[in-house]
């Protein structure tokens, strides 16, 4: 461990002083939040969606100006009007969505980010700088391969290199683990520890309590824009943090699956399901190609029976998207068969498939699930807009009945909005997702294909949606649950298929799996020959 080399007479590197942020639409994102960042420290910034984590870090990294309050360095107040100024000061942020040019190599991407002339010599210089930087930090990335050919974890490392190459002292990472396999997460954490020992400060935004416990030194908890806790990790229990994060009012929801790190609750009502014969959804030797023509789904066969949840776990990008799209008519598979209650569905378009009793909760709610400029009511009939219930002669829409239907949905699914004519883009992420779930379940489906149904939602909304899915299962519906959230799949599925490069590594009940084995299967290693 090196000693205090950073110039910090007062013992801190940067301080956020009673920062308030009010967005132009009147939303108060932060209320007098204060945060002190010291060298040699990893701070976990914990909070639900919309708690103000991202707003705070955006203010620190110069993306947003604070409404009130200021950012203070040991030398006095600082004011960044752009991320570049913050970078020059020594603050760098790695965003959740990478900003990389896919066809460029890592060296080229880093050169590009330096905003200097993009010349051959400059790239070569950067390459050298990166090589020595990789030597120092132990962070290794192939430098001369186009980044689109790299795994997600490697791309993230390129992003980190990009920031480190600017010699930053404070590194801010926004939910860095959401796209990584368990092994990649371990590697990332090793790297972060090493950087910490070199004297850097690190802010880690997360809503996973487990990560907080394993890597951070200090945890700062935000709730509704207010700082509700600033504790040393060693002194904080998981239960306490969870309580801080969701608040007292949500206490009954505090036992939601994400919060329990030790044990996965098995609330499953074990009912016997007859698994002989073909299931409600029967898939055999399904092969589907991805957007670039590569084989994405490679000969999958499985059945989903009524009354069970069949979970598909795996790191994103291993063919889950293509599988779901093939089953819901959005993608034409290359070969294989898929039937729903005996009817072949391959080659049918979405409308015909919905008619067979399929509900589809899509993975991308903004691109696929909703027409954002449409109102709540218009979105609530997407896909069912031609149903007799909503349509009179000459395809006239019965807005009266539609609005009634929407009010029922808002009631039943607890959708917070001003009314049926509120634009969908004005809703929060959780309410948008509830709208989609409500719309799909209102179809009274025989089979539900749910893809990442709780991604990006706060604990309350996620819990509610999971509960709804469990109810549908108990009502005898077949559910295909695809999720990158391993805990979610393991906690709710009756059977799990672990998907890697378009194939199932294993299909079994969650009880037969421990996390290590799942982690290895997700990374493509079979149990026996694993590291």
């Amino acid at each position, binding site marked *: 461990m090196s000693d205090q080399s950073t110039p910090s007479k007062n013992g801190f590197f940067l301080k956020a002083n009673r920062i308030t942020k*009010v967005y*132009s*639409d*009147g939303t108060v994102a932060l209320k007098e939040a204060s945060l002190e960042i010291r060298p040699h420290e990893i701070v976990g910034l914990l909070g639900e969606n919309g708690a103000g984590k991202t707003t705070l870090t955006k203010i620190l990294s110069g993306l947003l100006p604070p409404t009130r309050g200021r950012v203070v360095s040991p030398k006095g107040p600082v*004011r960044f*009007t752009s991320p570049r100024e913050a970078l020059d000061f020594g603050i760098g942020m790695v965003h959740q969505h990478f900003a990389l040019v896919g066809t460029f190599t890592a060296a080229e991407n880093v050169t590009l980010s330096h905003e200097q002339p993009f010349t051959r010599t400059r790239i070569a210089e950067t390459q050298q700088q990166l090589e020595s930087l990789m030597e120092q930090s132990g962070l290794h990335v192939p430098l001369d391969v186009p980044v689109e050919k790299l795994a997600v974890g490697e791309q993230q490392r390129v992003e980190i290199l990009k920031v480190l190459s600017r010699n930053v002292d404070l590194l801010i990472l926004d939910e860095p683990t959401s796209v990584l396999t368990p092994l990649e997460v371990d590697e990332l954490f090793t790297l972060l520890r090493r950087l910490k020992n070199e004297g850097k400060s690190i802010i880690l935004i997360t809503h996973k309590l487990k990560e907080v416990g394993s890597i951070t030194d200090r945890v700062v908890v935000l709730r509704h824009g207010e700082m509700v806790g600033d504790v040393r990790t060693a002194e904080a229990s998981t239960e306490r943090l969870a309580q801080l994060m969701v608040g007292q009012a949500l206490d009954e929801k505090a036992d939601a699956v994400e919060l329990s790190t030790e044990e996965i609750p098995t609330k499953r009502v074990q009912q016997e399901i007859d698994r002989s014969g073909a299931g409600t959804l029967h898939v055999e030797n399904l092969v589907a190609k991805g957007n670039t023509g590569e084989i994405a789904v490679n000969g999958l066969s499985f059945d989903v029976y009524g009354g069970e949840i069949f979970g598909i776990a795996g790191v994103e990008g291993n063919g889950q998207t293509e599988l779901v799209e093939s089953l*819901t008519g*959005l993608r034409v598979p290359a070969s294989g068969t898929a039937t729903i209650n005996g009817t072949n569905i391959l080659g049918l*378009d*979405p*409308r*015909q498939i*919905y008619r067979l009793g399929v509900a*589809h909760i*899509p993975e991308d709610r903004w*691109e*696929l*699930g*909703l*027409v*954002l*400029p*449409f109102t709540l009511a*218009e979105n609530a*009939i*997407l*896909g069912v*807009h*031609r149903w007799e219930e*909503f*349509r009179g002669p*000459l*395809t*006239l*829409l019965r*807005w009266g009945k539609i609005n009634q239907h929407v009010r029922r949905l808002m009631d039943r699914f607890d959708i917070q909005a001003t009314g049926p004519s509120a634009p969908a883009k004005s809703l929060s992420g959780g309410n948008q997702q509830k709208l989609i779930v409500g719309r799909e379940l209102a179809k009274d489906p025989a089979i539900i294909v749910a893809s990442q149904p709780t991604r990006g939602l706060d604990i309350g909304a996620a819990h509610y949606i999971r509960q709804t899915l469990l109810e549908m299962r108990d009502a005898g519906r077949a559910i295909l649950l695809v999720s990158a959230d391993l805990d979610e799949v393991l906690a709710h599925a009756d059977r799990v298929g672990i998907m890697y490069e378009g194939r199932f590594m294993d299909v079994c009940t969650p009880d037969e799996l421990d996390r290590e084995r799942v982690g290895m299967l997700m990374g493509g290693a079979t149990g026996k020959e694993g590291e």
Partner: protein
Amino acid sequence: MSQNETTVQSRLLRGAHRTLTGLHPALESILAAIVGLLVGAILMSIYGFDPWKAYMGLVKGAFGGSYEIASSLARATPLILTALTFSICLRSGMFNIGAEGQMYMGGIASVLVTYFVLPTGLHQIAGLILAGLAGAAWGIVPAILKVTRGVSEVISTIMFNWIARWLALYLAIYVVVDPLRPEKTLSIPMTARFPVLVRGTDLSYAIFVSIAFAFVIYFLLWHTAIGYEVRAAGLNPTAARYGGIRNRRTMFLSFILGGVAAGLAGATIVMGLPPTYAIYGGGGLPQLLNMGFDGMAVAMVGRNHPIGILVAAVFFGGLNAGGRVMQFYGANPVPLEMVRVVMGAIVLVMSIPELIRLFPMVKKQAEGLIGWLRRATRRTEREESA
């Protein structure tokens, strides 16, 4: 106390913000019109005209009396329809620049009613149907090219405009030509003409065709499942596909409807424009020229909403009608071209996307500048005192 003030203030701000965003589209159009008129005024004063007098003349010439209003409305009649052509297709996510060509085909097709005899009423309807079909036929080809061969509809509709223009000219000069007066086509028979609405003006009953079509389109888009599909496909094609909407179908439908609208526009000009009720070949179809392109400007100012288009078309019709008066106005003869400059400026301003949003940006820059100045003065003060 101060807490209270801030909440009141923020509530007021929020209210003002909501009102502004609600009126946003209309405000943008009005602002664009004002800026366009200002640009025209500046140009006029550069060339030594009195812009105030000129605009008084323009307004008087456009809306100064029943005759003026009638001629403004008469000029608005085809513009409503060609604007709808652009708007319907834009609502379904396509850029249909082909209203001009589709309108030529509709105009020529409506001349064909001279070849058969029908009672009044039926004869007009026959003409409208012919024009609508011709416009739709002309509009559907780019749609087919787009679906089957992936040809950009922008390119193909522009090229089809030229084909239509010379084809229409050829037909007007050689095929449906008046044997006694080779500079014009056969005149529409009395039974097929739209009667004049206000005596002594060129405003005919054809305007009701335009208004009715605008309302039909409004109703279709916002009150039927078909229109719902068109709008969904236009706003988010991926989500539309997910919703079981067949995007090809909505695309074809919008091009057909757009073609019908443009074809009808041609018919309203030929069958509803006294005194000739014919197309003049000389000078390259002067009555029809640019009606399709002007329609795109109307659609933009009308924010691609049928009701907005009705208002915007009357505004543009007024500019056209009043512009003629402006050039004869006393000692201040502003050339007619100035009106087109104003129109051009309006379109340019409209095409600056999200105009209103520019203002927060300007505000932000100004705030940054003030903050920097303040900090700089403070720094110098500190240095001086030190």
